[in-house]
């Protein structure tokens, strides 16, 4: 099947194309130089914006926690029901949509690749079953390895090479894509009802500190040549005054940056950028963080923007969720995954008239706007923690228009304006920069060679939006932009038109990507490990790996490690 997209205004940041009028040709699911027009299906994109398909770097769409969240919140579903159509299945939303609905909604917004950022290895089978049920997008999952006992033991021994081999084996076993670290050391402590409060606290039961876990895994990541960096959720997340911990974490990674390439991705940075002693004095620490990031190039980040809505927070950070439960008195699920990680779920409503929530809202935008290089900070809501992913168009409107920001800021708590410097920021992003923060940058940070750009050989994933960059004035017509990004004119995945005018035309299942890391020596899975499985796990060692039939269709990516 051949497809020709004619005369669109193309934004392709990876190839440096900024609003050029050109044709995009797709043959057999890949982008090619040119094709014969008479054999191809032609889409006339004149006066429309053409971008690569969206790539989301951090969105909880599947796994044990997401599903527990669904069970916890019937009231979330009852208010957002999608009827079945001739093509799509029925489903429910809102903050934790059912699998099919998740796929359709992403596709309607022009997204084609989604990264599910937390998968406890024990629940990998469940996660992959759910991912297989999400249509319309390609996806991958990051296993939680920061508090995995074997990793902690290897780090304690200082045996990084064996640790690397073990992680290479884990990636293949659980079909993961990157190393996810959540509150390093804190999750293990939470098993004993405690937490770590700085990156130099000792982890109970192990002779390591969060600093050693972060640096150790960062080195391991380099040894294995993994496409993405370590994906880090910092210590002390969601605690006033935590910007100091975040800065310290960033600094401890400085030495590991060899060339100009980033060595770590700090996720949902907004939740890690608070100043103040307690919630009453809490204010934005975005300026300090942004200053640091502007002067260093070893990090990438994503926003974790907060939306004023009723949502469900879920992280593997058990102690943080416990604090949130104490703060709200809402329902709470505490989820302990044997020797691997913890987790928690608490419903939460971000309110305009709450000074803390309004400040959180400002911090996300401040970070995105104060960090000058859009290749460093990407657009996310940490779905569903800051708000559902369906709010991305709203965030785009806030980023491109000061008017839009001020309109929302005026409706928030009056004290919130003074607690951040958002009202003094004049920067307004261009469509090119939006293309960076939603597809180009994320794809580059993830090391996805065939996604997020429209160069020859890339996957035929294209999003076309009903926006004419020549006639529209972005800052004043932000409502038009918001509408355009929430309903893609066309979403094309692998050369197939999936969505037209915001309606799903056909259902198609994407692939699950995972890493096949080749090491010189294979990982020694010692007898000791098998005995440990007997002693500490509820599953047998032989039942642990995710076998192929859990993945509907897969695309293993082979990586050659340097050990």
């Amino acid at each position: 099947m051949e497809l020709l997209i004619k005369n669109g205004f193309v934004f392709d940041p990876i190839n440096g194309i900024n609003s050029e009028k050109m044709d995009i040709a797709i043959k057999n699911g890949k982008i090619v130089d040119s094709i014969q027009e008479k054999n191809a299906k032609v889409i006339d994109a004149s006066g429309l914006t053409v971008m690569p398909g969206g790539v989301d770097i951090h969105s909880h769409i599947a796994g044990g926690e997401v599903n527990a969240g669904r069970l916890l919140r019937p009231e979330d579903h009852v208010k957002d029901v999608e009827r079945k159509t001739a093509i799509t299945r029925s489903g429910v939303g809102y903050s934790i949509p059912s699998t099919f609905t998740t796929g359709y909604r992403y596709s309607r917004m022009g997204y084609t690749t989604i990264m599910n950022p937390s998968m406890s290895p024990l629940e990998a089978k469940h996660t992959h079953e759910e991912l297989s049920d999400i249509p319309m997008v390609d996806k991958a999952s990051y296993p939680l390895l920061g508090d995995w006992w074997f990793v902690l033991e290897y780090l304690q021994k200082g045996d990084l090479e064996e640790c690397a081999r073990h992680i290479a084996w884990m990636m293949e076993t659980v079909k993961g894509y990157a190393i996810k670290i959540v509150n390093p050391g804190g999750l293990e402590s939470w098993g004993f009802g405690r937490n770590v409060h700085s990156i130099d606290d000792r982890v109970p039961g192990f002779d390591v500190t969060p600093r050693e876990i972060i640096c150790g895994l960062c080195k391991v990541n380099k040894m294995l040549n993994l496409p993405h960096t370590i994906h880090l959720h910092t210590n002390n997340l969601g605690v006033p005054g935590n910007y100091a911990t975040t800065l310290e974490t960033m600094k401890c990674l400085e030495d590991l940056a060899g060339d100009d390439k980033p060595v770590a991705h700090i996720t949902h940075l907004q939740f890690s950028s608070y100043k103040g002693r307690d919630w009453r004095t809490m204010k934005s620490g975005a300026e300090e963080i942004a200053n640091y990031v502007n002067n260093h190039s070893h990090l990438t980040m994503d926003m974790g923007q907060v939306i004023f809505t009723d949502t469900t927070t879920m992280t593997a950070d058990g102690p943080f969720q416990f604090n949130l439960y104490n703060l709200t008195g809402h329902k709470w699920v505490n989820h302990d995954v044997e020797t691997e990680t913890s987790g928690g779920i608490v419903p939460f409503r971000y309110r305009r008239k709450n000074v803390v929530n309004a400040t959180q809202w400002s911090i996300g935008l401040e970070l995105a706007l104060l960090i000058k290089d859009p290749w460093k900070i990407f657009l996310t809501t940490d779905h569903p923690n800051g708000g559902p992913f369906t709010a991305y168009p709203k965030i785009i409107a806030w980023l491109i228009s000061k008017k839009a920001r001020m309109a929302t800021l005026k409706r928030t708590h009056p004290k919130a304006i003074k607690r951040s410097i958002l009202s003094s920021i004049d920067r307004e992003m261009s469509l090119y920069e939006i293309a960076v923060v939603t597809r180009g940058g994320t794809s580059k940070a993830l090391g996805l060679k065939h996604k997020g750009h429209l160069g020859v050989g890339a996957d035929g994933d294209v999003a076309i939006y009903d926006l004419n960059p020549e006639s529209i004035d972005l800052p004043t017509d932000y409502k038009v932009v918001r509408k355009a990004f929430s309903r893609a004119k066309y979403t094309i995945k692998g050369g197939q038109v999936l969505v037209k005018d915001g309606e799903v035309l056909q259902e198609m299942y994407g692939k699950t990507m995972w890493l096949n890391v080749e090491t010189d020596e294979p990982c020694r899975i010692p007898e000791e490990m098998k005995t440990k499985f007997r002693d500490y796990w509820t599953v047998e060692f032989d039942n642990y790996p995710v076998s192929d039939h859990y993945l509907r269709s897969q695309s293993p990516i082979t990586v050659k490690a340097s050990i």
Partner: protein
Amino acid sequence: MIVLTPLRKFQFPVMAECISPDVFQGKSRDEIASLTVYEGNRRKKLGNLFKIEKESAENLKITIKGDVNEVRRIGSGMKSGEIMVFGNVGMHLGHKMEGGKITVHGDVDGWAGSEMKGGLIEIQGNAGNYLASPYRGSSVGMRGGRIVVSGNIGTDSGASMQKGVIKIHGKAGHFLGFRMRGGVIHVEKDVGDRAGACMTGGKIVVSGSLESILPTFTIDKMKPKVKIDQNEKVTGPFYVFLGDRSENGKGKLFASKAANPHLSSFEKLL
């Protein structure tokens, strides 16, 4: 005035959100007859299920003649006008109602007035379970308005209530006012177990006998009279309990002294 008469006995649940004065407003008889309803999983027209007569030009008054046990969501989200039903009604009557009046000369099924914000529901017969309660998992209860029931009500009524008045002339089942935060519930006859469990605010007034008091309630004082709303006061005397202490609550549970001799042991603690 619009008069609806069911053409037959419905075998399956009928979802009829459209039976509401706000929807009927400004529509001709034929337009009303072609409104969509679901019978089971089949899409039907209102005219297929009901005989529709238009008795005067204005549509703000709807009368339903006959039993509509299987018909759900009558008056859902209504803001004005009046619905009168001569017969029994199905579930979700006046769900999310904001204004106007619904009168039922018969019994109603569960979840009547759930998540109601305003208006008046009068039930001459009995009401089912979950009167004025939110759906499962939700914490948004009744936020205003008034419900009056002449007969008895089922269990789990008034859950998560925030505002408004519920007046029951008969008996109430157990778990009355679960997680209540505000508003007033007055029951003239007996009330089942665990009234006011997890309540943090509001008033539950029991003029009849109260089976037992939860151990997480503490006696506060005696009171000769209780105010229900601006126009109404009930005379007692009443035992006043505060609770639910397990939730740090400041809700008030009033139990009539005359009808509850088994609570007299609490007087020692005053």
